[in-house]
């Protein structure tokens, strides 16, 4: 074989061995190290194998602008996007391996006369180009062929490595994203101010957030995990109902639930929950949120309470108003009565005095007649006439006597009426003779009493008391007339009896009014002083009499009034009045 051919073959196989060795070395490098250090090591290996002065790798985009350069340095160098075509002036960019003329690695290396450039791999719009440069001479065709072979050999490996790197990068990215999301969701769960919880199908707590522990007043979440949710309810048995409902419907909205806090207090909460089910319908988990609505409930409660109290107050106000109106009416009737009494007094006065005068004249007439009839001869006078005259004088005396009675009765009634009304001492408390008040009241009430009842008085020796006489008379009238009316209907056998007694008991005067009427049934005994309470037919009584009496005795006079009654036997009213009057009175 000729030497030239043998040389060529030898050269080629030498070159071949170099390439193979280099390939193996590069594979090893890439297999061991996934970082950019591997690239640097690879570049150095290539440069070394080709006896290059400089070696570098550039990432170059489709517009042939540099992005990053990795050379024998430890770190990648970012270049501004200079176009390597302009810098390097390649003769052609279409061949596998490109020969470049005088060029230097931008920003780093020195100018070298000859460069070889090969694209090691392409990914997307970027390609990785290896540049090797030599200080002197040209790159031989062998070098070009070797570099091309190297590229062919190493390209798949680099591609796989590159793809793995991208995969790895994506994986790390996804992991980071998932972690971020997980943190975000966890924060929502943990940081929420409402309780979020999860339980298994048997109501055991499997998850709960910080708010949950706070709402229940527990120091930590650990106290809650693993325990039945019902443990923390005020009434654990309530949970059964909740579970039944949620199993039936799959969810519950706005369910009111009361928890018992660690310190024993109860909190009102609102719970919304849903079930997580298997495909066959069995419940795997219950998830829910609980909101503390104690404040809202408290506000509502206060509002209702206030409203209720206002409604009560209103009703009381109405009652008081009615009582006051009735009181006013009675007061004005009293005034009217006193006015009438006053008006009647005058004519009665002169009627009485005229009558007395007339009586005197008749007396004189009788005397004259007597003288006449005895002085003249009796035979002159008609015995008939004498008899008639005598009859006239006798009857006249009777008529005048009756007149006296009549006048006395009218005067008595009028003065009783005036006494009873006592308009002259309207708002001031005076010294009052209770016995006298009873007497005048009985006169006023006589019309009501006389047909149904006797009256027996047992008025003791009592001092005058500080009181409002007109009002006390009203009270006595009220009770006495009630008694008489009770005895009237239903009608009874025999006459009724009203007994009135007064006596002194220490510093109080005790007045009792007893009747033997039908009595008051026990059921209504404690109601008789209630305003508007009446057993009379509508129209026959307002039901205010006794409540006004109560008000007068208890509130105005600091006294007491109570009743005892036995159905079938009778009723007794007791009134106790302080002799010195009510505490805050101004005496005149």
């Amino acid at each position, binding site marked *: 074989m000729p030497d030239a051919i043998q040389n060529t073959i030898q050269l080629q196989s030498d070159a071949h061995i170099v390439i193979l060795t280099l390939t193996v070395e590069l594979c090893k490098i890439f297999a061991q190290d996934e970082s950019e250090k591997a690239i640097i090591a690879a570049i150095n290996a290539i440069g070394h194998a080709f006896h290059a002065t400089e070696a570098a790798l550039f990432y170059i985009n489709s517009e042939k602008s540099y992005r990053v350069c990795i050379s024998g340095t430890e770190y990648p160098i970012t270049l501004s996007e200079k176009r390597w075509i302009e810098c390097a002036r390649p003769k052609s960019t279409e061949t596998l391996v490109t020969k470049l003329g005088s060029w230097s690695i931008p920003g780093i290396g020195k100018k070298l006369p000859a460069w070889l450039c090969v694209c090691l791999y392409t990914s997307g719009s970027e390609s990785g180009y290896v540049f090797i440069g030599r200080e002197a001479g040209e790159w031989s065709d062998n070098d070009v062929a070797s570099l091309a072979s190297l590229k062919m050999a190493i390209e798949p490996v680099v591609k796989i490595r590159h793809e793995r790197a991208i995969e790895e990068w994506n994986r790390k990215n996804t992991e980071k994203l998932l972690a971020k999301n997980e943190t975000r969701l966890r924060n929502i769960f943990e940081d929420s101010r409402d309780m979020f919880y999860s339980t298994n199908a048997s109501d055991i707590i499997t998850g709960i957030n910080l708010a949950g522990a706070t709402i229940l007043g527990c120091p930590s979440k650990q106290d809650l995990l693993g325990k039945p949710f019902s443990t923390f309810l005020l009434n654990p048995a*309530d949970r059964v*109902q909740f579970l039944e409902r949620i199993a039936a419907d799959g969810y519950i909205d*706005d369910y*009111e639930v*009361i928890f018992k806090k660690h310190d024993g207090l109860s909190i009102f909460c609102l719970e919304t929950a849903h079930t997580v089910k298997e495909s066959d319908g069995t419940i795997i988990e219950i998830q829910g949120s609980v909101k503390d609505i104690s404040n809202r*409930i408290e506000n509502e*409660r206060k509002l209702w*309470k206030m*409203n209720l109290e206002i409604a009560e107050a209103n009703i009381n106000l109405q009652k008081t108003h009615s009582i006051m109106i009735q009181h006013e009416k009675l007061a004005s009737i009293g005034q009217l009565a006193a006015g009438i009494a006053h008006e009647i007094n005058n004519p009665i006065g002169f009627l009485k005095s005229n009558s007395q005068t007339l009586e005197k004249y008749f007396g004189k007439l009788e005397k004259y007649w007597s003288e006449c009839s005895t002085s003249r001869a009796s035979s002159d006078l008609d015995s008939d006439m004498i008899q008639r005259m005598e009859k006239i004088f006798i009857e006249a005396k009777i008529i005048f006597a009756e007149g006296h009675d009549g006048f006395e009765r009218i005067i008595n009634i009028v003065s009783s009426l005036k006494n009873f009304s006592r308009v002259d001492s309207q708002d001031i408390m005076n010294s009052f003779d209770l016995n006298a008040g009873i007497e005048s009241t009985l006169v006023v009430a006589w019309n009501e009493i006389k047909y149904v009842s006797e009256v027996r008085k047992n008025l003791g020796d009592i001092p005058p008391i500080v009181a409002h006489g007109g009002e006390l008379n009203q009270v006595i009238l009220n009770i006495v007339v009630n008694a008489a009316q009770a005895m009237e209907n239903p009608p009874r056998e025999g006459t009724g009896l009203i007994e009135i007694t007064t006596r002194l008991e220490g510093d109080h005067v005790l007045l009792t009014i007893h009747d033997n009427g039908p009595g008051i049934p026990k059921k209504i005994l404690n109601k008789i002083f209630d305003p508007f309470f009446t057993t009379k037919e509508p129209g026959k009584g307002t039901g205010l009499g006794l409540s006004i009496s109560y008000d007068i005795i208890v509130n105005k006079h600091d006294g007491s009034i109570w009743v005892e009654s036995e159905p079938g036997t009778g009723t007794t009213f007791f009134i106790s009045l302080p002799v010195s009057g009510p505490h805050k009175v101004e005496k005149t």
Partner: protein
Amino acid sequence: MDYSETVDKFFEKDSRMRVSLMEDVSGIIIRLNGSLDMQSSSALQEMLMYIIDSMAGHKRLVVDLHDVNYIPSTGVGALTIALMTARKRDIKLQLSQIQPKVRSIFELLGFMSFFEEVSDDA
């Protein structure tokens, strides 16, 4: 008064609360059965107001809670409002056969004392 119509007007047939009404000389008795959740509470309130409005005065309205096992705050509120309205119209609203659980909620809210309780034989 046709009570079945009244009930239908306020309560859907499939709601959690069943209601029946009875009238006697003393007034009207309402029997509740079920749980008073937010929805049925407001329906109950409307119905009570309607009945109170159409009742004559001096009568009583008894709410029988024997079959009520759950009452939220809105339920208590409904009864309270009905109580106030009834008072204004001189109608006595009374509760009967209050279950211990329901009673404890009334007491917790402090409203037990406002309501008059009657036994069933009244």
